[in-house]
Each structure stands twice: as structure tokens, then as C-alpha cells.
């Protein structure tokens, strides 16, 4: 009987080694797996490469991981948002590297990684600064850039509900990068507010099939980044 449950966030991230590449779901706070990120801070892995749309806010969650100087590089589309102070400070001090990727290209690179497509052409960013150093090619009179897939050692994502086989459904716009990151990582770890037995999810509504998921961990009452930031919370 397959059972992908991990006993808690700490156990779920226990084997992440130094130097790992980790995809972290979320767009702003929606879908940010704060409890898994905090467990990763406690666990201590460093020299990480993080692939995520943003760089967190305040000093909790992803921003706290950066603040703890565990991250060598981020691959990201929008590293500054409201209340985002940790990344800009580290970046200006030269303590972190940034690969800036248009948001749709970031998503497609991740999807391609999960789908076994090593490269693809996209029109986004053709003729801009972000095209520098990239191969371009014309198809039917329009210029496209060659972009490579992105894959990762781990993905940390947040769902609303999963079954013990790893089938996942999400909450509203918290779905964002979860389904594609789940496909693109060797080990995908999902925190959910509720875990159900097989048969507890209608197969017609499953968003991420369990084949893409390695570990599920129940976090019954996940924290919200904006509430933590508003309360002045920091982690650890």
C-alpha cells in the first residue's frame, strides 16, 4: 500500500542537502508553503538555488530563508514586491545572485522540465535586455528566443487537500506554480490543510496526479504571510 505521508514538515525536508536546487511554489503569499520553508530553515541546508516567482516579504517564509543566508542564487521573475526588503538588501551587497526570467518563460521552463522538453522557443523578451546571450531564431517572420528547461532536486508546494497517494487539489489562485513545479522536481513535497484516504478526492477534480508527488504532509492551519508580516513576526 503506497502511503506518501510524512509525519511533519521537519521530516518531510530532512534529507535536503547543501547545494540543492529547490522550486518553491507561490505567487506572493498565495500558495507559499510557509511551514515547509520554516522547516527547511531549521534543517540548515545552505548554498541553495531557489526557483520561485518572488522573493518573499517581511522576514518570514521565503524571505526568512534568504535572510538566514542559505540561498546562493534565485531564479525569479519579480524579486521586489511590497514589504520585500530582504532580497534587495542582499542583492545590493552582492550576497545573492539573480537570474531574472519573464514570468511566462519561468512557468514554461518549469513545465518543460517536468514534461521532458529540454528547450523551446518563445517570443517573450525577444529584442530586449533579457535576450542577451540567448540564441534566437525566426519562425514565420517573427523572432523567438531559445529557452532551456528548469528542473530541481526538490519542490516545496502548498495544496488545500491531498490523498495519501499524493493526488492534490489547490485553493483558488494559490494553485499558480504548484502543478508544474510538482512535475519538474525529483522529490516533490506538498503541504496540505487536509489529508484524506484514497477515494477521498473525486478523480475528476484532481489537479496534480499523485505520480508527480513524493511526500504529503498535513499542516491543518497554515499561516498566512501577510498576517505574519503585519504582526511583525520573524523566523526563526
Amino acid at each position, binding site marked *: 500500500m503506497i502511503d506518501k505521508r510524512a509525519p511533519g514538515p521537519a521530516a518531510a525536508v530532512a534529507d535536503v542537502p547543501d547545494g540543492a536546487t529547490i522550486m518553491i511554489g507561490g505567487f506572493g503569499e*498565495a500558495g507559499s508553503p510557509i511551514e515547509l520553508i520554516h522547516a527547511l530553515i531549521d534543517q540548515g541546508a545552505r548554498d541553495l538555488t531557489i526557483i520561485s*516567482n518572488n522573493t518573499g516579504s517581511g522576514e518570514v517564509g521565503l524571505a526568512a530563508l534568504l535572510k538566514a543566508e542559505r540561498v546562493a542564487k534565485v531564479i525569479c521573475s519579480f524579486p521586489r514586491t511590497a514589504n520585500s526588503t530582504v532580497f534587495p538588501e542582499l542583492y545590493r551587497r552582492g550576497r545573492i545572485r539573480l537570474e531574472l526570467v519573464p514570468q511566462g518563460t519561468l512557468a514554461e521552463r518549469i513545465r518543460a522540465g517536468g514534461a521532458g522538453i529540454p528547450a523551446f522557443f518563445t517570443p517573450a523578451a525577444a529584442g530586449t535586455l533579457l535576450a542577451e546571450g540567448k540564441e534566437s531564431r525566426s519562425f514565420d517572420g517573427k523572432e523567438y528566443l531559445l529557452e532551456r528547461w528548469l528542473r530541481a532536486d526538490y519542490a516545496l508546494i502548498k495544496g488545500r487537500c491531498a490523498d495519501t497517494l499524493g493526488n492534490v487539489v489547490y485553493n483558488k489562485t494559490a494553485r499558480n506554480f*504548484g*502543478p508544474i513545479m510538482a512535475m519538474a522536481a525529483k522529490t516533490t513535497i506538498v503541504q496540505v490543510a487536509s489529508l484524506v484516504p484514497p477515494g477521498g478526492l473525486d478523480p475528476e477534480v484532481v489537479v496534480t496526479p499523485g505520480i508527480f508527488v513524493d511526500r504529503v504532509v498535513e499542516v491543518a492551519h497554515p499561516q498566512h504571510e501577510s498576517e505574519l508580516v503585519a504582526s511583525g513576526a520573524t523566523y526563526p
Partner: protein
Amino acid sequence: MTTNAAQIGWTREDMARRLALDIPNGSYVNLGIGIPELVARFVPEGRTLIYHTENGLLGMGPAPREGLGDPELINAGKQQVTALPGAAYFHHADSFAMIRGGHIDLCVLGAMQVAQNGDLANWSTGEPDAIPAVGGAMDLVAGVKSVFVITQHCTKNGEPKLVDRCTYPLTGRGVVNRVYTELAVIDVTPGGFSLVELSPGVSFEYVQERTGAPLLRQGTLANGTRHEDRC
């Protein structure tokens, strides 16, 4: 320039109302952050638009009532929104397939500069100490069928934003179709900027003086008459 251009011509709300008139019923529309968001308030009676927000929602509705929001139901500006009846959620690769694949009819964006050939600069000043951030703007302009820009005609320092050639880093080449400012509605055509409509009380010459490239005098003026002559 000593004149404060913001006090002449249309207000931001007027600009958004004017733009909204040009969106056909049933369009799938992506509104950028800031002034573009105002457009949703002014959709004419009898028209229904379906709003796409690139973080993963079609059928986006207005902000929730106080206390009824969900921190995981947000728009691309990370503000809480609602989902209207008939809405759909999807992941980012699908969302940008809608964008890049030409399924979204229109996006409305702000701008730092628009060039007469339709080049758009709206993501970076290129200053060395700026934190670079691009988001979805490059994907939007590369794939959405029509790109409307809504912006003040000049910068706070009075410099034209409609220019001969962009000096800021580009978001996309030849992508802008139409520009709405407090002074005028201006098309980007193969011949350059072409006047569509002046805001009330503003003259062609006034707009031309504040535009960094030649303006073709063609289109409908605010009083409804058509000007066919080119300057």
C-alpha cells in the same frame, strides 16, 4: 515645462472611461497594475468583459468586502479580489499559454515610454542600483492580440513619454497598438503616432509640443468631427 499637465485634459478616471469605450463586448482582458485597473470600473452598460489575471484566474471580480477576502484569492498586483460566477482557476503554464498563445484579446498596461514604432518600455529604468524585476509584462506584450497603454502624457519632470525611440530598456518591440493619455487618444500606425481624439479643450499643437515624435493629424476629435488631413 512649467505647466502641470496633470491638471489639463482628462482625469485618470476619464482616461479609463474613454479606454473602456473601445473594448468590445465579450473580450477577454488583462488589466495591468495601477491606472489600468481603473478601466474595470467604467465598462459601458450592456457589455460584459472577462478579466484574466496572470497568476491564475479568469472571471476576476472586484475587491471583496471587508473581512470576506481570502489571502489566496489575489490578482497580479497581489491585492485580494473575488471570483465571479463562471470563473476558472488554472496554473501558471496554462495562464501564460492563454497569453502567449493569443487567446487574450486585450491587455492594458502602464508605460514609461512608448516609441512611434510601437516599442514599449515599462519594466526598468536601467539604473545600475535598481533591483531588476520583470513579471509577466514581456509575455503579455509578446502574445496578447491588442496592447493598449494608459499613461500620463509626460513624466513628472515634463519629459514626453511618447518618444521617437525608447531610451529605457524595452519590454517588447513594436507591440503597442493605442495610447490613452490625459491629453489624447493616439494610435501607433506604420506611419507613426496618429491622433485619434483630443481631450476637451486641448489643441493638436498642445499635444504635439508634448510628444517626442511627429503626430499625424487623423481621426475623430472630441466633438465628433473627423480630420482627414495630415500635418
